[in-house]
């Protein structure tokens, strides 16, 4: 009953939004904004039922040169109520970061934040992406989150770089494969009109002391009618060559005002699992309003028995 009430509240609040770029709720007479997102998906290969993958609260506060941003996520709740035991539900601090803007050109961030690596990791939630499933590189080649310090420098209006440094344990439990206690990275971002590009280089140490080095590059054309995004990562792990490469090309065609078609081709090699395969994805996205997305996609693996349809419903509120 409470779940249904929650969904109704979220839907009604999302439909009441008048300005398409305004999300969340500004607490009157404070610099604080509170919002969030939810996403539900049906993926028969994972669980044969609709799952609330994520329900998250986002809070932010801007005061002079300081920006505070937090994201707390509740995940893995099933709609039939069978996953309501405390062992199934995860409560996780996805982000808790404080940024100090030295100027428009320089900023310093501390806390737990999304690693500034690649395109996908800049906004790794379903409502902000064109597909429900994520490319293989996400969660396999670099730590999704870093608990440490990030320094960002804008070289000029079109070019910037960032330095990431972590030398401590994660402040939250990781919801992804790579758990690190050390992470150093250098990332570069360039943009010219609708075209942008990124390069990343980093090294991390996992909790079991395994050390890995990764390098990635990517480019995106984000036009009015269509966008193309491509990323390639390579990784070198001490004493082994577990993940030699992983890359994808994804194109999204905005063929109607509210509808997109998505095509993705992926290829990767994983020596630890003894797999080298391609993944093809064909997807459809319907966004009736700026903050709601309904997605359907078919994923075809050339080796692993993971061919399937995946459906999702997501809301940013």
């Amino acid at each position, binding site marked *: 009953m409470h779940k249904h009430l929650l969904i109704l509240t979220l839907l009604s609040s999302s439909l009441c939004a008048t300005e*398409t*770029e305004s999300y969340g709720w500004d607490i009157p007479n404070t610099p604080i904004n509170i919002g969030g997102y939810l996403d539900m998906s049906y993926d028969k290969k994972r669980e044969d039922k609709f799952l609330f993958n994520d329900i998250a609260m986002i809070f932010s506060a801007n005061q002079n040169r300081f920006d505070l*941003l937090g994201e707390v996520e509740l995940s893995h709740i099933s709609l039939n109520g069978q996953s309501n035991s405390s062992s199934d539900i995860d409560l996780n601090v996805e982000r808790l970061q404080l940024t100090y803007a030295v100027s428009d050109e320089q900023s310093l961030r501390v806390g737990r934040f999304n690693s500034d690596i690649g395109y996908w990791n*800049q906004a790794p939630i379903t409502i*902000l992406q064109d597909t429900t499933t994520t490319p293989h590189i996400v969660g396999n080649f670099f730590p999704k989150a870093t608990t440490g310090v990030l320094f960002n420098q804008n070289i000029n*209006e079109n070019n910037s770089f960032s330095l990431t440094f972590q030398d401590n344990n994660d402040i939250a439990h990781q919801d992804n494969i790579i758990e690190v206690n050390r992470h150093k990275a250098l990332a570069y971002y360039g943009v010219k009109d609708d075209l942008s590009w990124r390069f990343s280089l980093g090294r991390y140490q996992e909790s079991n002391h395994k050390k890995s080095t990764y390098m990635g590059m990517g480019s995106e054309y984000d036009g009015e009618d269509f966008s193309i995004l491509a990323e390639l990562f390579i990784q070198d792990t001490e004493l082994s060559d577990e993940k030699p490469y992983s890359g994808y090309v994804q194109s999204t065609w905005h063929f109607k005002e509210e509808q997109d078609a998505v095509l993705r081709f992926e290829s990767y090699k994983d020596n630890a699992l003894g797999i080298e395969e391609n993944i093809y994805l064909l997807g459809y996205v319907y966004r009736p309003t700026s903050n709601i997305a309904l997605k359907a996609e078919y994923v075809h693996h050339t080796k692993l028995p993971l061919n399937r349809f995946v459906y999702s419903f997501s809301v*940013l509120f």
Partner: protein
Amino acid sequence: MLKYFIVFISITGGLFSLELVVIGDKNFPENNLSKETIKAIFLDKKRFIGESKVLVMNHEHEKPLRICFEKNILEKSEKSLERYWRKAYYQGKRPPKIVSSNEMLFLYLQSVQPSIGYVDVNATLDKEFKVLYQIECE
């Protein structure tokens, strides 16, 4: 006859064309801004003018002036801006403050420094502010 026709075209053309001015408060630290800088300010990529954080104001959705601003200055479609602000919100960025009228905009310009907004060129008579950029709507 041709002369009258040209005069008629110029007058009607003048009546229907919209000219937009980007304006700052009267003590705004810059005397003019480039289109790129204005774009960065309105997309929350540039927050400071001098040492101070700037108040940025936008008009309501679907107002002709805003459509002109988005097309000619931001050079983005409504859908493209929608996509931009969805991701920007997640990253902690905030869109400009929405003002419901020119009077409200002028009130903020008088009371908050530095502040920036845009109006139709005809709305600027007898007001104290700095014109930072001027463009004719296509």
